[in-house]
């Protein structure tokens, strides 16, 4: 398992991501689905639950930075 494999994966927001909040995303990885603590890749975004996001940065062990996969 390498760090690079996490980047670029798609995931779903299960806890609201935003400034001052610790969000949560669930991502398909290692044959299952795991959740990671998530922060917005661009500092001021607020991403509501249910939004599809893409991992742009992975900080081991359980932290990812994400941005919305589709422009709304």
């Amino acid at each position, binding site marked *: 398992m390498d760090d690079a494999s996490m980047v670029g994966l798609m995931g779903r927001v299960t806890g609201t991501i935003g400034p001052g909040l*610790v969000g949560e995303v669930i991502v398909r990885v290692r044959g299952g689905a795991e959740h990671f603590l998530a922060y917005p890749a661009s500092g001021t975004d607020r991403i509501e639950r249910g939004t599809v996001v893409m991992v742009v940065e992975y900080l081991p062990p359980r932290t990812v930075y994400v941005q919305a996969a589709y422009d709304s």
Partner: protein
Amino acid sequence: MPMVVGVVAGVAVAAIAVLIGLFKLMWRVAEPNEALIISGSNHKTEGLEAGMGFRIVTGRGTLVLPGVQAVRKLSLDLNETELHVDCVTHQGIPLKVRGVVIFKVGDDFVSIANAGRRFLDQQKLMSERVHNVFAGHLRSIVGGLTVEDMIRDREKLTGQTRAACGTEMEKLGLIVDSLQIHEIEDPTGYIQNLAMPHAAAVQRDARIAQAEANRLATEAEQKSYARMAEATRDSEILQAGYQAERDKAGAKARQAGPLADAAARQEVVVQETRIAELEAHRREQQLQADVRKPADAKAYEKRTLAEAERDAQISGAEAKAKETELAAAAEATRVKTAAMAEAEATKARGTAMAASTRATGEAEAASAQAKGLAEAEAARAKGLAEAEAIKARAAALAENQEAVVAQQLAENWPEIVRAGASAFGNADNMVILNGADGMADMFAKALTMGGTGLGLARQLLASMNQNGQPVNGSSLNGVASPPSQKVPVQE
């Protein structure tokens, strides 16, 4: 030789068994819910940076040198920790919170390495450690929330949990799957009081709804009772009607027996009456046959006999009278006819003789005159004399004609008389009141009719004679000529 072969074979088998045993000792397999942490060798580290000194194997087998490398297992299973924490909320309300934390070792190698370093020998104590960590964190979490939030806002609770514990647990290589608040003990009754207005409102609404429902139910019930009463009334009316019909039918049925008896008795009486009538009739018939018929027959016989006798007598008398009458009539007719025929014959002869005589005389006179004239006048009156002779001859012929007529009348007299008597031919029964005189009168009248016919004939002849002789005076006067005076002769 076979011995050697057996030994070799046995050694080979033993060697294979030893090899298998060694392999078994050296080959370790990581099960899905565990990670093998292998330390003690220098060979390549997998998934981790160099210098770590151990390697992590998950989900597959690996070769381990016994005695050289140490293999430890780290469970990746789910763990849970009960929490009993006294907290104070954001509003400063003391609460006793009971909850549960569900966590596990993270599946990535970093997490496994972190957890391995921290908990490999204390896997049994992991829950306790986590409890201690979470007890403090839960206080901070609850302190950041109000009671209402805790009760109602799960999102906020989980968000706060992540914010407070997420990074903390990352350090331990653990993942918090869930934090559940099971029970909140509220020594001050805050929650109860919090619920009270709503409970009261709910109770009010419930009572209102109950009352409304009761009202509706009562209305429905009363309507239903009214309907039931109506139905009962209708049913009773119908039942009464049917009962009346039943009573009527029953009474009719009860009366049916006596009625039938009476009818039967009546029938019997009628039949008896009929029998009596028939018997009386039969007796009457018998009496008729036995008594009356013979008497009638006898009377009829007597009557018939008497009538026959009487009729016979009457017929005899009538026959006798008729015979007498007919005999008298026949006699009278015969006598009268004979007398008349004689008289007519006599008269006819006389008349014929007179006429002949006169004709002769006239002829002689005429002859003498003619002779005288002829003598007197000679040849000059010859034509005239001849004419006179012709005329005289014609007159003589006329006189002879009258005689012929008279002769014919005389000859036909019996037929004339018979025609007169034929007036009586159709009379079956003639009652003559005056006897023979009456009879004579009747015949005289009948013959008068024939006589009248004769008179007419004579008159005709007379007029012919006058035309033949110059009798101008009588014709000028229009008086009946003398020959018509002869008619009474026939009476």
